[in-house]
């Protein structure tokens, strides 16, 4: 049985498509984009062009052939640089890595060469590429394969960073990421690939209000969104009406949506999969402390991963869960 979490609340953005999982929604978005524009091509190592470690490119090479679903050497630096070169030559590459963590050895290429290209060239060159990063924990992959990468990539000028908060928005986000003239990192939480939902529209740099409420604003993105949803339901049973915001875009941040919710509720909790220290949750808190301090009636709490590496064994003890979110909600409400 699947529960249709992503259709809650009933929302005009939801279409009538049957539910499918995040990998499938991404595959559909990729397929649609490749059909619509023959400048779009998919890149990755052999695993990624032969279906993908998480299944989001299955059948693609059979449908589009090995020129448009192009296998690259197993070297993320070469992969990123290839995408950059192809963009220079007018294409719109979509590069998939096995694990988002693999980008850590190529941040010079991503953050210096790719992200700043438009700026450095005075708008004369640009790099419209999409980088698909399976992100975060949830599959027991240990500390080196479980980063959520919002921390490392979310504050890089010139780089759009977008996180799928559920299967529902994945198709819409990847389509728009491909259409964007900027380089876009799509964070795909590993723990959500098998979640099922009906597709809905999301905008590339607009946060989504997933649930309205007057008592407290809950800010989440990526893998933290389903945890936050659970907390919204639980809180409702306690009579606490939570407004749930899926940030969707990490960079740029939709400050207006964040602030207008906070101004309405006066209370906020931030839920974040990655470590607390130096994460993007801090940026959300800082924006509020800077621009909405007079609306703030209680401490802004962050429920996040611990300031430790993520462990393989017992990783569920590391990642924020509904119980920890509820505890923060109660603290803020009771303040």
């Amino acid at each position, binding site marked *: 049985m699947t529960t249709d979490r992503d259709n809650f609340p009933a929302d005009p953005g939801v279409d009538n498509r049957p539910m499918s999982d995040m990998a499938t929604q991404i595959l559909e978005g990729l397929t649609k984009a490749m059909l619509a524009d023959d400048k779009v091509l998919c890149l990755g190592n052999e695993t990624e062009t032969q279906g993908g470690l998480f299944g989001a490119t299955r059948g693609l090479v059979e449908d589009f052939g090995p020129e448009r679903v192009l296998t690259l*050497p*197993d*070297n993320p*630096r*070469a992969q990123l640089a290839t995408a950059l070169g192809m963009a220079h030559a007018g294409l719109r590459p979509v590069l998939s890595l096995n694990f988002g963590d693999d980008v850590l050895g190529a941040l010079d290429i991503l953050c210096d060469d790719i992200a700043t290209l438009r700026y450095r060239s005075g708008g004369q060159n640009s790099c419209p590429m999409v980088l698909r990063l399976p992100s975060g924990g949830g*599959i*027991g*992959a*240990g*500390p*080196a*394969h479980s980063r959520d990468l919002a921390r490392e990539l979310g504050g890089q000028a010139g780089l759009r960073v977008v996180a799928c908060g559920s299967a529902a928005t994945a198709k819409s986000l990847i389509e728009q990421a491909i259409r964007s003239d900027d380089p876009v990192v799509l964070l795909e939480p590993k723990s959500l690939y098998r979640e099922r939902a009906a597709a809905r529209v999301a905008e590339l740099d607009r946060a989504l209000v997933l649930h309205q409420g007057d008592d407290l604003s809950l800010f989440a993105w990526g893998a933290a969104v389903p945890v936050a949803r*659970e907390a919204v339901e*639980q809180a409702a*049973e*306690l009579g606490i009406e939570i407004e749930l915001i899926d940030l969707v875009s990490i960079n740029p941040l939709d400050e207006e949506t964040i602030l207008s919710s906070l101004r309405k509720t006066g209370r906020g909790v931030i839920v974040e999969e990655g470590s*607390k*220290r130096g994460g993007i949750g801090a940026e959300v808190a800082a924006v509020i402390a800077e621009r909405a301090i007079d609306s703030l009636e209680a401490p802004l709490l962050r429920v996040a991963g*611990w*300031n*430790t*590496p993520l*462990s*393989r*064994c*017992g*990783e*569920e*003890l*590391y990642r924020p*869960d*509904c*119980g*920890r979110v*509820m*505890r923060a909600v109660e603290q803020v409400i009771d303040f």
Partner: protein
Amino acid sequence: MKQILDRDGHLSQADALTASRTELLEIYRLAKLTRRADEEMLRLQAEGLGDLSFFVPSFGEETAHVAATLALEFDDLIFRGLRGSGIALARGVDLHAFFAAALGCDQAMGRSLPGLSAEPEFSICCGSARPAASLMPAVGAARALALKGQAQPRIAVAFFGVGSTQHPDFAGALELATHLESPVLFLATSDRQGPSGEIAARAENAGVSAEYVDGDDAIAVFESVRSLSQIVRQDGRPGLIEMAVEFPEPGGNPGSNPAHDRLGNFLKSEGLLPDDLSREINRAIDREVVEARDAASNLKTQEPRPPSEQIFAEVLCRASADLEGQDQNYRDFDAEYGGSEDPDARCLL
């Protein structure tokens, strides 16, 4: 390709054999032991116990790993990646510790992927899950070991597979090793169906003395590692041995094992492995492996997750205030909400 035992287990170059009978029997036993231990690990993985989804067995390369490890000096510093059960077992890590580390019931609580545990008493460094990640550190360690002031001439050794050689850090490690004149021994297992001797050729090209060896020939591996490691040690320069092994086909019979059989046939032909000894070895391995597996499984079942204070330990050499705060926070939470083992049950309603 260097070979001392042919496919049937006949000694083709009798004078090349320096390993003692005891050493050869021990290689045989440890290779069998490793195979059995990996099989049990896969069984636990299939049962879903102990977060073992990323465990990778070393089927096909275990004989080479064991023979190579026994040919080294005991305090040569070993770096390894995934797929190296035989290395630890050959160094003397006991089966209980082996299973406990994989299931996260040891000191490191399964924080890293299975098979990467640090074994300082056995001069084995904590491994990394990324391909090629151990190669350049091994070069650096070798350089450090060679610095004056270190007592005995120790070398560093890195075990890896073809995946690592496709990473740019393999070339980086070769270059670094020649640049630093590091006494490091690279031990690569390759697929005998794959391109023949290519890894050794790349090493030679980069100025690293290399040999291409039949990795299913335990004696060839042992003798090559023993002699090249001595050269590396004495001359203070890097070496590489490519050991070509037969990997079982995916889904093929994991029981068949040409490298075990080859050594076994030789030992039998020499009268060193009578049938009753062979049976006794198998029985002992079976007993020890099952007992160790069960002991570790029991530990894991009793304590399926690391105790909460361990979440916050060993991040830095002494706890920082933020970690102490998070630890306290976690304890308060458990106290308040009952600390159920099922994280879902810890939700309020």
